[in-house]
C-alpha cells in the first residue's frame, strides 16, 4: 500500500466514526513490536459492556488482501481469544472473502467482530475457549514432535532427545524405525478425560505448582491411584510427561512438561517431592491427527493395503493410499525403475543421486518407493516385495486375506484376470480395485470387485465379467467391455529398438487414473460400495483420433455416468464368477 493511499485510508477511517476520538498512530508507536507488519494504525475508544476501552486498529501492509488487526487495551483480566498486546483473534485468516472495493466497511466489520468477542469474554460466556486454546497459550520453552497415538490409558511411551527437540514415539520399535541408533528414554503419557474447570490464569505465567495442579486436579481418582502406584519409590532426577487434553468442541491436544531436578517422589504422586517444571510445546505428528488434518478417513486408519504394480499409476496410488491414512502398505513389483519413464513416474530419476544409490538394496521400484514413502510418512509401515505377484502368492510371501484392500495397478489384463480367479477361489479375500489407463490421454478405469469372508457368499461380479461378451453376442471377441478404444487396435510406439515398445500416456493421465482408483478403494473400505463397480474418466480424444485410432461406443457416454455414477458390470453368465463355480472354466470359451 503506498503512503498517499494509506494516509487517505487512515483519514477516511478516522472520519468514519467507527471509533471515538480516532487518530493515526505516530511513527514511535509503529516502531513497537506489536506493529510488526503493519503499514499504519489508528487508535480510538469504544464502549464494550458498559466499559470504555482503548482500541487500536492496525492496517497490515498486505491489506486488503488480509484482515486488519484489532487490539484492545486496558483489559484488567485475561479474556479468551485476546492475546499478547491485546491482539484479538476475531476470525480465522483462511477462508474469508474481503470486499476489497470497500476497505472502510472491512475495517468496521472486523472491529464489530472483535468487540463482540471481547464483550463475550467480559460477560464470561466463552471461558471454555481457554481450554480450546490451551496448546496456543502453553509457553513451550522446548519443543516436541509426537508420533504417539493418543489413547485412553496412562502408559509409558518413548522419547528421543535431539538437541532442543524431543521426538516422541508409541514404542521403541517405532523410534528405532524412524530414528535408528539413538538412545530412547521412557516418557509418561497421561490422558486427561475431562477438563471441567476453566483455567483461572495465564499458563504462560504458571510455575511448577500451577502446572502440576492443573494436571492433578483433572485426573480421575483411578488415574491418580494408577500414577501413584507406577511412580512411587522409583527415584529419578528428571521426567518427561506428555498430557492429552480433551477439547470442549471435540478433538484433543497434547502438552508437555519436563520435570527436572526431582528430589523425593515424582511430582505426580500423592506425596510429591520437589522439582522444577518446564512447559514443552508438543506438535502432533501421529497418524490419527495428520490423517484427519490431511482429509483422510477414519475408517482407513490402521488398515493394511496391498499395491500390485508400482508403475506410473501405482506410484501415485501408493502416495495417495499413504495420505489417506493406511497404516501398512505392501508393494509388489518385480521391475526396476527405468530412466525413460522418469517423466511419468512419481519417483522421477532418483538413481541419479549417489546417496540414494548407496542406501538402496536394489534399484527395484518397490525399494525406491519404500524409501520415498518412509521419508515422507515415517508412521507408515512399508513392505517392499520385489517379485511378480504370481511368484509372491505362490511362494506364500503374500496372502490376500492379510489385507483390507488390494489395488492392482499392473496395467496387464492377463495378470489381473489371474489374480481375479485366485481371489475368487480363496476362502476369503479383501475388496480389489483393478486400475488401468488407455493411451494418448483417452481415459482411465478403476473396477472394484467386492471381497468376501470365509463363510460369506461371493457377491456377483468379478473382473472377468468385463471380458465376458453379452449372452446374445453373435461373434464373441476377446476384448474388455470397459475400453474406450474400439477393439482390435494396437496402440504402442517404439522410440528405440525392438522390445522398447511403450504405451503413450503422460503423468497427468496416470495421476488421474490413480485418483479414480484410490477414491474407489477408499469407498470400498468405508463400505460405501460393496458390489462390482466400474468407474472411468475420459479425456480429450483428439490426440487418439488424430493418430488414426477409433473410439468405442462407450466413450460417447456422458461423464456423469462414467466417472461419477459408475456402472455395475456383472455378467450373469460369466465363466468365472457365475454359479456353478465348479464347472466354470471347463465351459469357458477362452
Amino acid at each position, binding site marked *: 500500500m503506498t503512503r498517499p493511499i494509506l494516509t487517505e485510508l487512515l483519514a477516511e477511517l478516522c472520519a468514519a466514526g467507527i471509533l471515538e476520538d480516532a487518530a493515526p498512530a505516530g511513527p514511535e508507536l509503529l516502531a513497537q513490536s506489536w506493529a510488526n507488519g503493519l503499514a499504519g494504525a489508528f487508535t480510538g475508544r469504544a464502549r464494550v459492556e458498559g466499559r470504555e476501552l482503548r482500541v487500536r486498529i492496525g492496517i497490515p501492509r498486505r491489506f486488503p488482501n488480509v484482515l486488519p488487526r484489532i487490539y484492545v487495551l486496558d483489559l484488567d483480566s485475561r479474556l479468551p481469544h485476546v492475546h499478547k498486546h491485546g491482539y484479538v483473534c476475531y476470525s480465522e485468516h483462511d477462508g474469508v472473502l474481503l470486499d476489497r472495493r470497500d476497505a472502510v466497511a472491512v475495517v468496521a466489520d472486523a472491529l464489530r467482530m472483535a468487540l463482540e468477542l471481547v464483550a463475550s469474554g467480559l460477560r464470561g460466556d466463552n471461558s471454555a475457549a481457554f481450554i480450546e486454546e490451551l496448546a496456543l497459550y502453553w509457553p513451550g520453552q522446548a519443543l516436541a514432535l509426537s508420533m504417539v497415538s493418543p489413547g485412553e490409558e496412562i502408559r509409558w511411551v518413548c522419547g528421543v532427545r535431539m538437541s532442543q527437540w524431543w521426538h516422541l514415539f508409541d514404542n521403541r520399535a517405532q523410534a528405532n524405525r524412524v530414528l535408528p541408533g539413538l538412545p530412547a528414554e521412557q516418557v509418561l503419557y497421561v490422558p486427561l478425560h475431562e477438563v471441567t474447570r476453566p483455567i483461572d490464569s495465564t499458563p504462560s505465567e504458571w510455575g511448577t505448582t500451577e502446572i502440576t495442579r492443573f494436571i492433578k486436579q483433572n485426573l480421575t481418582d483411578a488415574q491418580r491411584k494408577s500414577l501413584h502406584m507406577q511412580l512411587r519409590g522409583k527415584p529419578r532426577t528428571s521426567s518427561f510427561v506428555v498430557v492429552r487434553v480433551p477439547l470442549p468442541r471435540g478433538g484433543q491436544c497434547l502438552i508437555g512438561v519436563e520435570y527436572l531436578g526431582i528430589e523425593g517422589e515424582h511430582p505426580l504422586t500423592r506425596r510429591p517431592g520437589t522439582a522444577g517444571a518446564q512447559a514443552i510445546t508438543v506438535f502432533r505428528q501421529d497418524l490419527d491427527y495428520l490423517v484427519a488434518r490431511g482429509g483422510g478417513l477414519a475408517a482407513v486408519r490402521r488398515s493394511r493395503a496391498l499395491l500390485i504394480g508400482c508403475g506410473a499409476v*501405482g506410484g501415485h496410488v501408493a502416495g495417495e493410499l499413504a495420505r489417506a491414512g493406511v497404516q501398512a502398505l505392501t508393494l509388489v513389483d518385480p521391475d526396476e525403475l527405468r530412466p525413460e519413464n522418469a517423466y511419468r513416474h512419481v519417483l522421477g530419476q532418483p538413481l541419479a543421486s549417489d546417496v540414494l544409490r548407496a542406501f538402496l538394496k536394489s534399484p527395484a521400484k518397490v525399494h525406491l518407493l519404500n524409501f520415498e514413502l518412509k521419508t515422507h510418512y515415517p508412521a507408515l509401515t512399508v513392505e517392499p516385495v520385489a517379485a511378480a505377484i504370481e511368484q509372491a502368492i505362490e511362494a506364500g510371501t503374500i496372502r490376500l486375506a492379510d489385507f483390507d484392500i488390494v489395488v492392482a495397478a499392473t496395467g496387464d*489384463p492377463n495378470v489381473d484376470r489371474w489374480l481375479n480367479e485366485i481371489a475368487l477361489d480363496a476362502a476369503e479375500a479383501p475388496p480389489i480395485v483393478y486400475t488401468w489407463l*488407455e493411451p494418448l490421454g483417452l481415459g482411465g478405469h478403476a473396477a472394484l470387485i467386492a471381497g468376501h469372508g470365509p463363510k460369506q457368499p461371493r457377491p456377483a461380479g468379478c473382473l472377468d465379467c468385463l471380458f465376458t461378451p453379452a449372452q*446374445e*453376442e453373435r461373434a464373441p471377441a*476377446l476384448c*474388455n*467391455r470397459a475400453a474406450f478404444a474400439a477393439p482390435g487396435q494396437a496402440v504402442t510406439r517404439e522410440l528405440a529398438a525392438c522390445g522398447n515398445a511403450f504405451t503413450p500416456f503422460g503423468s497427468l493421465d496416470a495421476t488421474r487414473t490413480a485418483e479414480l482408483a484410490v477414491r474407489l478403494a477408499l469407498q470400498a473400505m468405508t463400505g460405501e460400495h460393496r458390489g462390482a463397480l466400474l468407474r472411468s474418466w475420459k479425456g480429450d480424444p483428439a490426440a487418439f483420433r488424430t493418430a488414426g485410432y477409433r473410439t468405442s461406443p462407450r466413450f460417447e457416454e456422458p461423464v456423469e455416468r462414467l466417472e461419477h455414477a459408475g456402472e455395475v458390470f456383472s455378467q450373469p453368465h460369466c465363466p468365472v464368477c457365475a454359479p456353478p463355480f465348479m464347472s466354470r472354466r471347463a465351459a469357458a470359451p*477362452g
Partner: protein
Amino acid sequence: MTNINPYLATFDETIKLDWDRTGVLRERRNVILEHLRARLDGPSFDPCNQGSYDLRTGVHPLSGDYDIDVALRFNTTIDEWPDPVALKQRVLAGLEDLGSSVRLRRPCVTVFYRRGDEPLYHVDLAVYARDAHERLHIACGKPGDRPDMRIWQPSDPQALGAFIDGRFKDQDRVQFRRVVRVLKRWKDERFSSEGEAAPRGIALTAAALKWFRVERRQDPVDMRFHYDDAAALLAMVKAMHEYPERRLKAKLPVAPGNDPFERMTERQMEIFREELERLERALTTALGSPDRDGACDVLRRVFGDDFPGPEGKPTRKRSAIVASGSAA
C-alpha cells in the same frame, strides 16, 4: 440356456449368397447383357438386380441351380408397346445366338446354363416399361396366351428394397436379412422333396415384413447393440405358428400388393404350418439345451447339414491374442 447366436452367425456365413462374391454369376449376367445390347432390335434399357439379389436375402440353393434376377427397364412406354409379349420376343431374338438355352416364360425371359443334365444356373430377365406417369410395369404373358393374359402389370423391381430400407435402419436391416435367409434355407431344406408345397422365397420375405421384430439389447457397459437373431427368429416363427387364422396372409407392401401365400393350397398351407411348429419346437429346445452339442444337433435336423455340427466350432474363430490397449 445356450447362446446359439454364434452358430446361427456361422450358418448365415455359409448359406448367404453374396452378390459381391459370386463372381461367375455376375460375369455371366454381364455377358448376357452385353450380348443383348449388341443384338437387340428395339429400345435401349437400363438393367438392375431385382429379387433376392437386390434385397440381399439370397441363399445358396441346395440343388446348385442358382438363379439371377435381372430387371431390364426399357426406355420406352407401355403405350408404344401395347403387347408386352412383343417386346419380350425382341429380347428372346436378341439372345438366340448366345449358345445357351433361352425360353420365353410368362414372367420373364430365362437363359439356362447346364453342365450335362445338371442345371448350373439360370438368368431371369424381366422386362419393364414406364407408363405416361413414369410408373414402371412388368411385361406378363407368353406367345399363345389370350390377350387378357398378355398385360403390363404395375411393378417396380426396386420398390421392395426401398421399402425395407425405409422400415429397418442399419444393423436392424442386417438382422432382418439374416432371419429371412435362415428361413429360406429352412424352406429349401424342409420342402425340397415336397415340390410345389414350398412357399416361395418372396412369401417368406413378405412374412418377415409382417411378423419379424428386431431383437437387440444394448450392453450397459460397452454400449454396443447385440443382435439376438435366435430370439428374433423364434419370435417370428412363433407368431406365424400362432396366427389365429387358418391361412397365413402377408400382403406385399409394394405394387402389385399381392399376398404370395395365396398360391398355396389348403394342404400346402397345412404342411407349412406343421413345419413352422416343428421349427419353433426345435428352436425352443436348442435355446433351452444345457450344452452346445445338444443345441446344434437339434438345429441341424431342421436347418440341414450346413448348420454347424456339434464337432464344428464357429468358423469365425475369435482371436486368442489381441492388443489390450491398457497400461499403468
